[in-house]
């Protein structure tokens, strides 16, 4: 019994020793540099250029004037030309004298150029990196990724990481883009039901945009990132969705098309859309979408997909005019009919654009089609992702407009 006690005490001592052995090798905050966002560019020579936006701890004088660094608010940007992500990280580690840590990385930015060539090889590395969170956002920048990171100056947030966290969720209020995470992006890339899509980003030069080229019919929702006519200081903006076919960027959706996309994938929280007024052709009525629900049915007839999305939307009128009787039942029905036709036509445009122009099922109708197949063998042979370009659509939209939120009658 005495020997047993001695053995137990010895084991406890060994256990404690083993536990504390690892302490010397633990990385503390002094040894680490936290990356807030990661940018991917391709150089003229075809090499990968990695850019790191690194948070500067409070009290540090960040933004050294080194050849590869520049200052941006509470963070510095370091970039490096390299062959692979890991070697790039090592080179920057050596330059900074600290170990780059990606566990607080909030956004991964790919330039349009690199995305067009294909980003599959980087995706596998990123998803397998234990430090990078699967909830980190994927942004496709219309400009150089390094330039994009350099211009990400938090206007209303003190911390860069917080800024990215909040900025990506603005999609919940506007519906102008999708809050795409690395996990969602990789899932769509790897599965056989759908194609991937990402947040479309760009630099707004403070009202110097070429807005005329992107806005159609005077609609305020038909801009893409970097084209919005916002007059403010130069900063990054996210608007629209970048559409992929496999791992290659094939096109982009504007703000209104993004709303259509979110309606069809049941991800729209709230959005404001303007529809032409049924009472006066030059005016618009603003509808605030409070609820939307989409159910889709997919039929395969003679090998051709026939897709029937059924959409129900609840909206309320937020714009006012002096002579429209919004509380009038007939007027409300008129507005509803107008809204139905308007939204239906935009959803049709969105669907045929993704199907015929992009040949990319970003909506993920494949997940409804797969139920028609019993085994993977048959599903693989059918090759949904290639057959989507032959799809036909029959959209039905039912908008229910409420006007009871009006404070005074008009």
């Amino acid at each position, binding site marked *: 019994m005495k020997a047993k006690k001695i053995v137990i005490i010895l084991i406890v001592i060994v256990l404690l020793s083993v536990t504390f*052995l690892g302490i010397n090798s633990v990385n503390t905050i002094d040894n680490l540099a936290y990356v807030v966002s990661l940018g991917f560019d391709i150089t003229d020579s075809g090499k990968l250029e990695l850019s790191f936006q690194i948070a500067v701890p409070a009290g540090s004088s960040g933004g050294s004037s080194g050849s590869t660094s520049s200052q941006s608010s509470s963070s510095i940007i370091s970039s490096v030309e390299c062959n692979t992500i890991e070697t790039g990280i090592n080179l920057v580690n050596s330059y900074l004298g600290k170990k780059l840590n990606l566990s607080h990385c909030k956004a991964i930015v790919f330039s349009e150029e690199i995305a067009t060539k294909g980003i599959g090889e980087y995706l596998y590395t990123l998803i397998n990196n234990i430090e990078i969170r*699967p909830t980190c956002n994927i942004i496709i920048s219309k400009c150089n990724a390094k330039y994009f990171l350099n211009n990400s100056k938090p206007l209303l947030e003190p911390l860069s990481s917080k800024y990215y966290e909040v900025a990506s969720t603005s999609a919940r209020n506007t519906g102008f883009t999708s809050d795409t995470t690395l996990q969602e992006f990789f*899932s769509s890339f790897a*599965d056989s039901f759908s194609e991937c899509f990402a947040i479309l980003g760009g630099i707004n030069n403070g009202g110097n945009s070429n807005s005329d080229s992107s806005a159609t019919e005077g609609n305020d929702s038909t801009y893409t990132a970097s084209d919005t006519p916002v007059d403010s200081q130069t900063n990054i903006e996210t608007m629209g969705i970048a559409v992929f076919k496999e791992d290659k960027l094939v096109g982009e959706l504007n703000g209104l098309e993004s709303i259509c996309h979110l309606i069809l994938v049941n991800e729209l929280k709230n959005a404001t859309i303007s529809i032409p007024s049924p009472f006066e052709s030059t005016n618009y009525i603003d509808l605030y979408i409070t609820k939307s629900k989409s159910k889709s049915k997919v039929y395969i007839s003679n090998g051709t997909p026939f897709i029937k999305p059924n959409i129900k939307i609840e909206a309320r009128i937020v714009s006012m005019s002096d002579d429209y009787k919004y509380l009038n039942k007939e007027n409300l029905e008129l507005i509803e009919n107008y809204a139905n036709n308007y939204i239906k036509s935009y959803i049709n445009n969105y669907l045929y654009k993704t199907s015929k122009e992009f040949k990319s099922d970003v909506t993920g109708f494949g997940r409804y089609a797969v139920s028609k197949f*019993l085994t*993977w063998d048959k599903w693989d042979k059918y090759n949904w992702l290639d057959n989507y370009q032959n799809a036909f659509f029959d959209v039905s939209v039912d908008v229910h407009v409420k006007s009871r939120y009006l404070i005074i009658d008009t």
Partner: protein
Amino acid sequence: MNNDKIGTLEAISLVIIVIISHLILNLPNELLSSTLSAATLNVIYITGIVLLLFLFATKLFKPFKNKDILDVAEYVGGDILKKIVSTIYSLHLIFISGILIASFADTIKAIYLQNMPSELICLLFILIAVLANLFGFKSVSRTNAILMPFILITILIIFISLFTAFVPERIFPILGYGVNETFVMGASNIFAFGELLILFLIKPNLSDNKQAKKVGVSSILLSGLFLLLSVTALLLLFPFITGGEGVLSIYMITRSIHFGNFFQRVDALFILIWALTFFSYLSVVLSYILKIAKKNVVSKKSTPFIFIIAASIFIVTLIPQNISQIRFAENVIYKYSSLIVVFGLSFLILILGYFKKKKSEGLVQIDSKKINNEVSDES
């Protein structure tokens, strides 16, 4: 001997821990790789098969009250068969637990302790199991029973917290690779319940022997349920897992869990609970290898065996040189070893034992009839 008696709940916890610990690592991923989208159907199917097999085993055990599989082996083939069977069981459990600990140590190393040798992590686990066993089987089973609700709750939390992110349509095509692969070849996935070997050894430990059936049925159903939840969560969340690309599958799920912007990165909590799970798992397995060894050499002392068995497990943890060897051991060696040892050898012994017993009872009845007839003739 009374110190080894445990209640029904403790017994159920003992059986569940040995199955759940596989579930945390590569088991759901392996099931998904072999059956794809039919994995949920397959899990329900194999749970049914294992339940039927257990009920069959209960029937075969009926003539052997308070006896475990080693006693039946002794009855069938004498001391030699008992020694052979107990050696096979010991080697099976030592190998499986060693590989599982090596796998978990590799996971911990990849996630948190990059600079710590995985051998040292394995040693830490094994020393804790040794320490627990020095305190006796009862303390191991009670600690395990305390931990069990937390372990099961973590799996439930994983399932519930990501419920809204599930895409139900990913369950299609419902038959995966096809009927043959799901129901015929897929039947071999009963290896997922390979650690039910403990059920064949637990009978002498039960304070109420009549509860053996209840313990078996409850532990199989609960293990099946949690296996179903894990496989379903993976299938509905990560379609790419079906391509065999997810290595740390359940850990990947926990990385996706967040409660608003406030509660994020809760995976560290899960790793803590899972580390406790593996401490408990190794303690339970070590206890049972000890019991087998004691029966093998007919010894009442267990302390000398603890260190030998622990050293053997540690040696097994050193065998795999890389993650692909660990995966091979987990997916191939464990699968066939479980099918042969647990579902092959054990059932063969039980069937032979059952018929031998029935035959001997039949002979006894014939002898007694003969004696009765002779007595009546004489009178």
